[in-house]
């Protein structure tokens, strides 16, 4: 059994254990409401892009995330915008005066997500509500790999995936809006773009030579993607949130996110793997 599979099983079991562990509180009863959260904290980013290097590159940065949640009686809607721009260093990064001068990566990480889930089960004895739905997620990791001064190479993945969303919410305190939120997402099918010059070099469907640089390049690149599934892309994501309110409208969101993907286009050539861990603290407004 592969290590990745073990982690997947571990996360799903953890999800179940956390969600269904006994609690003295009741299921939360509330009016439908909107939650707006602006978060920041620490993001740890690790990448091994074999197109550029066999070495691990890692770095931490303060990200910025905006989250909107709608909590209805039956349904949940979530929209997320996430941004971080991180300098990643490896074991051979040359640092002069605390500044990387060679063998480093400037990594732009953008994430957009929309998920919809509907109440699938209520376990009153276990004080937990389960939701099942779908998630549309788009991830961009754009890397500028600076080998030496004036000698750099771009690399990226842009993946837009549709997958399953499992969500549980459990009240922490009786008759309060504080709750614990655990969410696991696994994309089933994704549309992947591989801009030049990294993985795209080996893509049958994409080549920078095929596009007309004097026309709208974004649209042309967008059309050159591939639909992939587990055969080429393995992606998983888990979120753990604790949301607590200090007043009727103002609260805080303690959030941990785990995100990992591994992508290869052909015969395991130039596999790109990215692991991202985020610890975020957000200010939440309830309307």
């Amino acid at each position, binding site marked *: 059994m592969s290590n990745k599979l073990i982690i997947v099983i571990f996360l799903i079991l953890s999800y179940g254990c956390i969600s269904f562990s006994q609690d003295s509180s009741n299921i939360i009863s509330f009016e439908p409401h909107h939650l707006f959260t602006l978060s920041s904290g620490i993001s740890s980013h690790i990448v091994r892009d074999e197109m550029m290097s066999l070495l691990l590159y890692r770095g931490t940065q303060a990200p910025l995330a905006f989250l909107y949640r709608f909590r209805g009686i039956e349904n949940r809607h979530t929209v997320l915008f996430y941004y971080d721009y991180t300098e990643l260093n490896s074991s051979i990064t040359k640092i002069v005066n605390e500044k990387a001068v060679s063998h480093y990566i400037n990594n732009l990480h953008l994430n957009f997500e929309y998920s919809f889930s509907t109440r699938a089960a209520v376990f009153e004895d276990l004080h937990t509500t389960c939701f099942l739905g779908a998630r549309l997620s788009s991830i961009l990791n754009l890397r500028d790999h600076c080998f030496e001064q004036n*000698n750099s190479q771009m690399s990226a993945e842009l993946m837009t995936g549709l997958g399953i969303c499992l969500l549980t919410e459990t009240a922490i305190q009786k008759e309060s809006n504080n709750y614990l939120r655990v969410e696991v997402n696994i994309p089933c099918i994704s549309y992947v773009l591989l801009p030049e010059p990294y993985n795209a070099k080996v893509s049958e469907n994409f080549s920078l030579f095929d596009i007309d640089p004097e026309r709208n390049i974004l649209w042309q690149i967008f059309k050159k993607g591939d639909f992939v599934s587990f055969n080429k892309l393995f992606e998983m994501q888990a979120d753990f949130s604790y949301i607590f309110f200090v007043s009727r409208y103002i609260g805080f969101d303690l959030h941990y996110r785990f995100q990992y993907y591994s992508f290869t286009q052909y015969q395991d050539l130039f596999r790109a793997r990215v692991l991202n861990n985020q610890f975020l603290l957000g200010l939440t407004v309830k309307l």
Partner: protein
Amino acid sequence: MNTIKRTFCILIVVFTVYGCENTFFEPDSANTPENNFEIFWKDFDRYYAQFSVRHIDWDSVYTLYRPQISPSTSDRQLFNIFSNIVLSINDMHVSLYTPLGNVSWKQPYPPLYPSMRLINAFKYIQGGAAQKSVFEYRTCQDPSIGYIIIQTFSGQSEGLSVIDSRYLVIDDILSQWKNMKGIIIDVRWNGGGEMFDAQAVANRFADQSRVCSYYCQKIGPGKDDFSSWKSISIEPKGPYQFLKPVVVLTSRATMSAAEFFVGAMQVLPHVTIVGDTTGGGFGDPVLRELPNGWTYRLSTTIGADAQGRIIEGVGIFPDVAVTTTAIDSANGIDRIMEKGIDIIKNSQ
């Protein structure tokens, strides 16, 4: 109490997952001479596209050099071995960058090959004309013939544009030269750069959409793992197409993106390629690095001209082969330039 339990449970999960880096990533390769050689050799073995077209037995490279490397091999010794390997591939797109120096194979010129610069320039062109950006342009002594030098196609993309706007100055030049009898474009010392910039310039001379070259890519680790051949085309772009006679001057120093430009111009019926065969290196290189911090690049594509002839290591043949010898050069005669002027003067 149960809340505490649950929180504790979450923290265990969070820190377990957070600490699972080793589950998803194997440790970095060791920085030893043997391992650096193994990675270097294996990378080329899997990704380099041109062994067959350059008639290189890569396994013999391993057999020859691997026994020379041991844990005690110094950086200098390893550099010398890598340099020998890089130079033996005979590909201008294969390079090694290290603190001990950079190594790239250069196309050797034939004996007595003259300076690549326009010889005795004032004999052929008028002085004092405008120069713009990456182009130098003047009229010839016959003012009905324009002369453009494109020194490089090394451009920089700006924002979302992949074309360096400096190359679009060609539109201004051509709009000024609409009434010219013909134009000579000199790329004899153009070592290449960005394919898009070369394509953008060639598009200004295209009468219709035409396939100008082909390429295939390495798509697997096996020696025969290549994509199918894909075509590259040029097509009319910009406010004005110059469809009168055009001569492109070439030499052995015309390389890479400049060769793409020559191949693109060669498919046009009003264009004549004059000079020497081009350098013979089309392959689009990628950069990679070793655990010791050395960087190298290698070609992952094979290029061919519009007729499907592979140009790697061969070059593009001119329509009219002319060489300027060192003796000509000493006498102030640029035979390639003279032939170009003659072709335009004698055109209908």
